[in-house]
């Protein structure tokens, strides 16, 4: 039930952006979207893949304009302060809300995942901003949030007020497909992604 409604919502967002084939009836679109499951945009909140064909594309087409976009992160910084994100997350270091400048992403760190967190809110205290803040602004805030932990942004910090010179989010930041060995792994013997056949 829950999955179904999530799928529907994604589908609606997808079709409303006019990114599906034009001129189809809605139920045809839905069937087409279901068949094309591996290419659907969406959010991976887990590194676990119950079955390969459940994987989603890593980059949401809606996110594409916000990669390598220096203006987006700067505007995102302004909005982050204007909407009181800074009240809980400070200049990235957190407080009432979690740290955003480390490498821990509770609900996923891809632009599309951050965006979804902003839209939906999260149960431990993150408010939901979908429908309250224009979507373009949410994407810009997402790109600023993603930027806070980029090496280039961290390197630009000169004092105890970080996040003031956000680097644009490179596409490569989200260039991966689900689980991979953690950083610093020197030996990896996990060669199979499938369970018992």
């Amino acid at each position: 039930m829950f999955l179904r409604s999530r799928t529907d919502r994604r589908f609606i967002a997808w079709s409303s952006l006019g990114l599906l084939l034009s001129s189809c009836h809605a139920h045809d679109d839905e069937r087409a979207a279901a068949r094309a499951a591996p290419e659907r945009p969406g959010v991976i909140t887990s590194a676990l893949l119950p079955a390969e064909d459940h994987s989603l594309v890593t980059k949401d087409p809606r996110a594409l304009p916000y990669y390598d976009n220096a203006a987006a992160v700067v505007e995102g910084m302004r909005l982050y302060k204007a909407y009181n994100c800074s009240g809980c997350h400070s200049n990235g270091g957190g407080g009432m809300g979690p740290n955003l400048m480390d490498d821990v992403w509770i609900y996923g760190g891809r632009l599309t995942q951050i965006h979804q967190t902003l839209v939906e809110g999260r149960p431990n205290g993150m408010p939901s901003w979908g429908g309250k803040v224009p979507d373009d602004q949410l994407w810009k805030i997402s790109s600023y949030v993603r930027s806070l932990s980029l090496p280039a942004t961290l390197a630009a910090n000169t004092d105890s007020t970080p996040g003031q010179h956000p680097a644009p989010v490179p596409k490569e930041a989200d260039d991966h497909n689900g689980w991979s060995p953690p950083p610093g792994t020197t030996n990896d013997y996990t060669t199979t992604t499938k369970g018992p056949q």
Partner: protein
Amino acid sequence: MKRRTVIALAAGVIAVPAAVAGASLILREMPGAEYTGPGPIMPAAVPDGKVYTRDQIGHALAPPTTDMGLAKPAKGAAPSDDGEWTMPTKNFAATRFSALDEITPANVGRLQPVITFSLGVNKGQEAAPIVANGTMYIVTAYPNIVYALDLTKPGAPLKWSYKPKPAPASQGVACCDVINRGGTYHDGKYIFNTLDGQTIAVDTETGKPVWKTKLGNINIGETITMAPLVADGRVYVGNSGGELGVRGWVVALDEKSGKLVWKAYNTGPDADVLIGSDFKPFYSSDRGKDLGVKTWPADAWKIGGGNMWGWISYDPEFDTIYHGTGNAGPWNAEQRPGDNKWTTGIFARDPATGSAKWYYQFTPHDTDDYDAINEQILLDMPFGGRIRHVLLRPGRNGYIYVIDRQTGQVLSADPFGPVNSSRGVNLKTGRLTVNPAKVAKLGRVTRDICPTASGVKDWNPSSFSPVTGLVYIPRENLCMDWMNLEVNYIAGTPYVGAEVHMKPGPGDGHRGVLTAWDPIRRKPVWELPEKFPLWSGTVTTKGNLVFYGTMDGWFRAVDARNGKIVWQQKLDSGIISQPISYRGPDGHQYVAVLSGVGGWSGAVVSGPVDPRDGSAALGFVNAMSDLPKYTTAGGTLYVFALPH
């Protein structure tokens, strides 16, 4: 990289890394790339000459009366000790004095742990254990689990536990960690508050709720963290949310049913504040109709704070409760010109009706987050050649106030730590003399404001010993840089509008002090510097010991007469709770405390907070970025006793 002074403190030298070598844009796989940039920067201490001395800004209406004996707890508010510890403050006078004297400076060296119990919650534990009828009751930080331990059996086994299951979203609107300041025992019930705004009375025999009353609304940022007071058949509760534009209030609930008896707001029209014909404030600045509206820009009082998340005292003789009011909101005071009544002050109220008797404002037009919710210790004290019925309040704005508790007149106000945000209290008008050089402006950093937002002392309570006549004050030595920012009110989000960076006050970088204060002579008798701010309370005993904990996990006993450390034990995590001392069912004296670092000052350890962002946790991280090197999150009950 900007050059910053690095303080080398005794055990931890903080290195500033060399300039970051060409930052690579090659990102490794999610979740993130290894960070090689600058680490946390420890700020330099504020220079000595930047704060006022006690002689410069301390004032009193009369010279000390030194020939009439010591101060005593208010008559009837501190009955003789029955060996239990049924309320966090120990008694209505809030002395936190135990009349047990089995443990003394001479034998305390043999003190040893006899009970430990994991609370199962690794967040800041600020509560006092409560002891009644051979049972100990503890409420944890969120999710506010209550435990009842049977002290009559070996190892104090669990009798029952109760899980109120507060809404998880309440964690996101708790300003400063998800702490709870404890419950209280009364008439077969353990009564406590939950982070999501409930007051719950649990039957102490069965562990089942007797009544549950919903008082707070997390959707507007309202939480409850304070410890309720039960007096005169009612339960008194106040709300938190001064950093989220929540309008402060205090309520009285019927102790038997939990039903609302009265509710008094701390801002707004007189009818809401329960100001009527009985209201007789001492100073003329507090007289006039609807000052809780008129001292604000239009409608700003509706989102102006003045919350009550600290301590309430009760005087049975004068049938009056005393409670403070929190900071004005937002922190950016330029958005709320005016005195912002009735924030940052103290009310005396009729406990039956809530009707206000008097009010005094410690910090009119609060520019520094100087909440006024600290404890008030009720004393009968020689002053001006006679015994005066006073309340003593070591305040967040840096002054120890002695106030006539019948009239609200300030008898003396003396700085007890680094102060330069004000230049004393005018005892004719009662008004704090603000230092304009330290008033923050929009978009500009005002440096070295003392004390810091968390005050010379925050919520963590002092104790008073009638044996020594001294007040044992756990305090901070911190100052801050502050910049005002424009902020929009968005319900359920922070309404702060300030960027703060805290730093050590004058000295060698020490950030805490235990002060033994003589209320009659208006000066410290001894002071014990501490590396970290003191965020635990103190308890003092007839055996002339003061117990307190440090944020790096030392639980110490000090000789109450001279400040000498006579015993200490390192606990599993830093200590920010309220130690107590009680007589066990076996007749022996015990000392109990919760470990579990956190709170506003300790969020850098217990919360998902990054030490590299000095502005994190409302600026406290700047002064605490080294704490993670000394302690980790925890949450354990420890009980100590002499071998017997």
